[in-house]
């Protein structure tokens, strides 16, 4: 197991190298001169050509792309993510001040999503041809179709403006967390419900379930012990991926709820051609994504004894 984990971590390094190279190139090949965009962000719209040239030289944009990348990589290997090209703030500091907010939101929306999706999925699988089953499936269809920004605003309108129960925006206590987590959680739950349902149906039609029924086990034991555990594998995989994405931040929900997460930082930095900030964010998001996947793979071994990593 330990050998497997260390091998995976070793591979993650290559993934990160690939991801950062691709990001770096995409940013460079995107239309527009980065020096001009950065100069405008720093000094305002009314610029002189000399100023743009000066930014180009001081930030090293006149060097070939590979040289620029290697320079960045060299700094990273010395544990230095550099400074923002626009605001001169320390990149690592900017990311770490926002990362806790992203993490809290990611985990709580995942919990909400699974709390809704797994029971709903199981019920709609067991009662697949009944009104209850249809109800859950319709619900999840609606959930998939509702865009996050609309749901978010609707929730603010209901819970903050109409019922005066929750704050409409911001970051702080548990009360601030509920609406954004609910917005993200319910939309994810919709997909997970469908997945749980189909996975359950798959397992329930297998012979060992029939055998268990013939043996006289009660339905509850069959479903919760024998079926669910096997049906969990695809759900865990999917939840792991969702968590990975969530840890990369969610721009829409962060914007609507004024949630100080990493997603908006990344998107703003891309528009501003803030290379060092974008590279820093991508690196951090890449690491968390890879670690989440690793954690998922390890969970497999516990869920299914047939899977053992040697």
């Amino acid at each position: 197991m330990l050998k497997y984990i260390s091998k995976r971590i070793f591979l993650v390094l290559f993934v990160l190298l690939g991801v950062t190279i691709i990001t770096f190139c995409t940013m460079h090949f995107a239309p527009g001169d980065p020096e001009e965009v950065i100069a405008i962000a720093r000094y305002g719209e009314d610029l002189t050509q000399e100023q743009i040239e000066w930014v180009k030289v001081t930030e090293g944009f006149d060097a070939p792309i590979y040289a620029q990348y290697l320079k960045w990589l060299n700094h990273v290997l010395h544990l230095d993510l550099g400074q923002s090209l626009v605001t001169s703030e320390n990149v690592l500091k900017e990311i770490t001040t926002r990362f806790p907010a992203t993490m809290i939101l990611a985990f709580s929306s995942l919990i909400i999503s699974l709390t809704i999706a797994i029971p709903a999925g199981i019920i709609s699988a067991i009662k697949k041809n009944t009104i209850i089953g249809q109800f859950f499936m319709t619900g999840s269809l609606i959930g998939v179709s509702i865009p996050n920004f609309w749901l978010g605003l609707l929730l603010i309108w209901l819970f903050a403006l109409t019922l005066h129960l929750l704050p409409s925006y911001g970051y702080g206590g548990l009360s601030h967390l509920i609406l954004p987590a609910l917005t993200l959680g319910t939309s994810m739950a919709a997909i997970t419900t469908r997945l749980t349902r189909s996975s359950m149906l798959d397992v329930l039609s297998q012979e060992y379930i029939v055998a268990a029924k013939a043996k006289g086990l009660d339905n509850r034991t069959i479903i919760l012990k024998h079926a669910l555990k096997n049906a969990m594998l695809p759900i865990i995989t999917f939840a792991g991926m969702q968590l990975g994405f969530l840890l990369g931040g969610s721009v829409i929900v962060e914007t609507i709820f004024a949630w100080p997460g990493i997603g908006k930082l990344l998107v703003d930095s891309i528009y501003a051609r803030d290379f060092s900030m974008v590279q820093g964010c991508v690196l951090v998001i890449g690491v968390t994504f890879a670690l989440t996947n690793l954690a998922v793979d390890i969970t497999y071994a516990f869920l299914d004894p047939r899977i053992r990593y040697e």
Partner: protein
Amino acid sequence: MANNKKRINLNALITCVFIVAFLLISGCVESKEEATTNELTIGISTDVNNWYLSQFPDGDGRFVWSQIYETLVRLDTDLNIEPGLAESWETPDGGKTWIFHLREKVYFHDGTPLNADAVVFSYSNESCVKKMGTLRALNSVEAVNDTTVKFILAKPMSLPFYLTHVAWPVMSPSCVDGSGNFISPIGTGPFKFEKQVTDQEIVLVRNDNYWGEKPAIDSVIFKVIPEATTRVMALETKEIDMAIKLPEYDVSRLEEEDGIEVYRKLSTFTDFLQFNCNNGVFEDKEVRTAVAYAIDTEEMVDTVLEGIGVAAKGRAFSPIMMYSNPDLKLYESDIDKAKQILAQDGWSDSDNDGVLDKDGNPLTITLIVGKGEWASRHISIAEAIQGSLQEIGMNVDIQVLESAAITSLENKGDFDMLLRTGYFVWGPYPRHFLVHQSTSPYSHYNNSEYDALANAADSTVDAAEQQELYYQLQEMVLEELPAFYLVHEEKIIATNSYVKGYEITAEDPWLNLNGIYIEKEQ
């Protein structure tokens, strides 16, 4: 069996946690509202990324800057020039040298006095003003004595206008340490910097040593709420007391709502449709004129912008601006005339597809709209333009692009029309006309007569002469159409009704909290 129970119990537990949480929170929110004292909470759309003069304060940073920092010269709520940190000024040589006499007994937030050295520091080579094109003519700033500063320019200019710019205020040299690293924002303004929580809030407290009328409120808290709709709802729940930059579509609803005051004022910002006069169909002035007649800006204001703003009908300067020419012959929309102009110019629909053509080339044009602050407004305006131009047989292809992509197309000259807002219009100063000057990176128009006129206007100090030149420029813009000016924007700010004494300023970046107070019925 034991395992199953555990899982079920876990679900039940989580549900319980959320129910308890809900109950707890409903208690928390109630108690928070009562705690509000003599502080003003303002919702803005971006955090302040920069506090130092070496960089331009972007986004909504200017609203916060204008509480902490002050400029030498100021504008009143109707854009009239008035003394700021300088009590008086004069130019001995017709605009090349300007001498400012500083107000006495003014202290920075750290107790150091305002003196000539601080002004010299604020306009040093470090400062962003020296890096911009706007004050390129500024050669040097010298301290004559402790309270007198001399600005020396390469050419005559109306410097006091420019020094009203909130992005170029006077900062204390103690903002930086010995090696020039920025420590904290120290200005002379009515509020002092207290703390900043990234992407969440900025807290300012009253400056009790303020030289002018001291604020009635103890503190100002700027809350960063990027989404305009959320800002509006936060205002309605009274989580914030004032919301800045509201969308047009919310205004009529808020105006009718009890307990909310909406403040509106014509600003100096004007949306305009810039033509690529150097390349493509708009090289032909007749086609530009047809577009000007085809677009009904009055209808645009009424339908797209819910009646907020003033139809420009081609006028470059908002009527609130000092040199806005009142006797211009504006474009009244006339579809038939537009069609006629195009027909006379040789355009006809020879293949009956609804789009005009000439020499086998269809009249299909691109209209570029930027993503960013103005995006939603500009996209709806662009769609209205698309509709109007379709009526005269022009096929408009709207492209929404990020700023870097636009710059790249602009540099290549690869576009037909661009939708912009007059970013360069700060206060009354008329620098905006330089945007159509052939040397400007934003210009897509080449006319030496215009260039000379714009230069002359920018180098004149005499008010009467200035006015005459700017009147001429406005006529020329209408006549020549390097751009067709669409809508003079209205600035919108809303407060809860318990916020009293607020006066909205015409100047966009300046947030004037003078005399504001909170009257809360407990």
